[in-house]
């Protein structure tokens, strides 16, 4: 009885519709197209490679997360493709999946270097600048920024 129940549940689970999630490439392609990023952005990314080498002026900007829904698929020109691949190569950490804007891409490496285990929910709803500020502040608490 248990075996048949388990098989039935497994089958039901297989049949369930899984929500479609755009790939990382598609997400980054959407940002590149939306903000018209050029190869100069890769140089900025190189400059912000270290945990403390990012441009601190990014932290003083708006801490609200930019609204962004990635396209379902992306086909890009070759120059844009190179930029996307460049970003994916330079920012090889899972936080890239939660970026919504170029600013967040620039802060991604620094944030990951400071704390590689931030919960996906916080990454999804809080701007990386706000998270980074919270991590870098001397009287740091575990509460997420409001």
């Amino acid at each position: 009885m248990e075996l048949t129940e388990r098989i039935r549940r497994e089958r039901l689970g297989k049949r369930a519709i899984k929500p479609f999630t755009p790939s990382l490439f598609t997400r980054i392609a959407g940002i590149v197209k939306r903000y018209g990023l050029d190869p100069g952005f890769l140089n900025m990314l190189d400059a912000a490679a270290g945990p403390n080498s990012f441009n601190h002026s990014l932290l003083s900007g708006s801490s609200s997360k930019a609204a962004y829904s990635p396209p379902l698929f992306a086909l890009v020109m070759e120059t844009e493709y190179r930029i996307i691949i460049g970003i994916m190569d330079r920012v090889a950490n899972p936080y890239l999946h939660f970026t919504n804007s170029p600013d967040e891409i620039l802060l991604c490496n620094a944030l990951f270097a400071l704390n590689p285990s931030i919960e996906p929910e916080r990454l999804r709803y809080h701007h990386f600048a706000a998270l980074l500020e919270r991590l870098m502040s001397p009287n740091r608490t575990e509460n997420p920024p409001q």
Partner: protein
Amino acid sequence: MRIGWGLLRGSRLFQLLESEIEIVLLSDFVYVPLLMDLSIAEEIDAHSNDSEIRMGDGSDALGEIIRLKGACYIKAVHLKSVVSGLRAIHPEYDARIRQDLPGRGGGDPVVFSPPGTRLMIILTEIMPHFIHRKDRMDRPKLTGKDILELIERRIEVPPACRKDADEILGEGELHKLREGVKGRMAECLPLPEKPFPARLLKEWVTHSIQMQVLDEEQARIEDFRGSWANYPWMSDRHRAVLKYLSDKGSLELDGFGFFRSGAGDDFIVYRRTGEYALQDFFGRVYRFPDCRVAVTTFGPFKPYVLESYKHPFLESKGPGQSICLQQQGLHSRKFSAEAIIKALEEGINALFHGYDRRRRNGYHSLDPMTVHERSVRFEDLRIPRDHPDIQAGRLEIKNLFR
């Protein structure tokens, strides 16, 4: 790997031609930049060697993709298809290019419209059937030549129309235009054998469409010159009348007329009914006003009324209604003088003699019996049976014997 085709579908073709996107021309094919994603990039990397593919050889590892200076381009569409596709997808653009043809003062076609074959058939075969000599009944039927001479007597042909055949056909002017466009095309070609902005292709496409229009015009003139062999009697006098009619596009003579529909050689041919009368079941008389029964030369060859008109054989009161005929759907599908004559005669006969006062046939009856027949009423057309026009023979009751 068919992304290139998708890019060039529909209005995207126009967007491409107005953009700065770099394209490549190879063996008369337009190659557009290959759009990339991870899987396409993997496929490209798996198949291509790193060497650049030489221009002009037309073959490569992937067949439809070339790599130039590190960028990939995919074969999209043939140049001829760009030209024909743009004309089909954007007829308004095609019309604008026609309007912009150099040396042209607007209107259609390009140089001068030689009277088309349909106009010739109307004048030489249809008109003689409907226009009769008034002086003597025993004289033979009018011919096409007689009709043109009759028109010449009735209307004033402007001196500008009195030219010789070559001038009328406008071949000299057309030749000059063709040479001019050819020169401009040569300036665009050869297109650079390297990536270039797509907007440069638009200029060449524009000239190509202009050249096609001029080629069509040349073919039309040659066709028409050939058709003149059928009219050995035609002199410059007749040609002047033809040119005048072709330019003006309309004529009405003795109750028969035609006017051009659209820009080409299509016309609407009509015959006036004049005033006539019909009687109902009780012998009451209804006076019907004049109307034009018309047929188009582009089909279907069904008679209809041009004006707003009511009649038992018309469904409502509006203009352009088809006349109800006994043999609906048996109309000829090919243009000919016989088809037009038959349709006009059938239409007029139906209006004059089709209504049977005892059977009350048609969509409506003159004396409606049921409420359903009362959407179109004819009481306002009723006149006394001893009306002076009937007494004097100016108004004929057409269905006296039905």
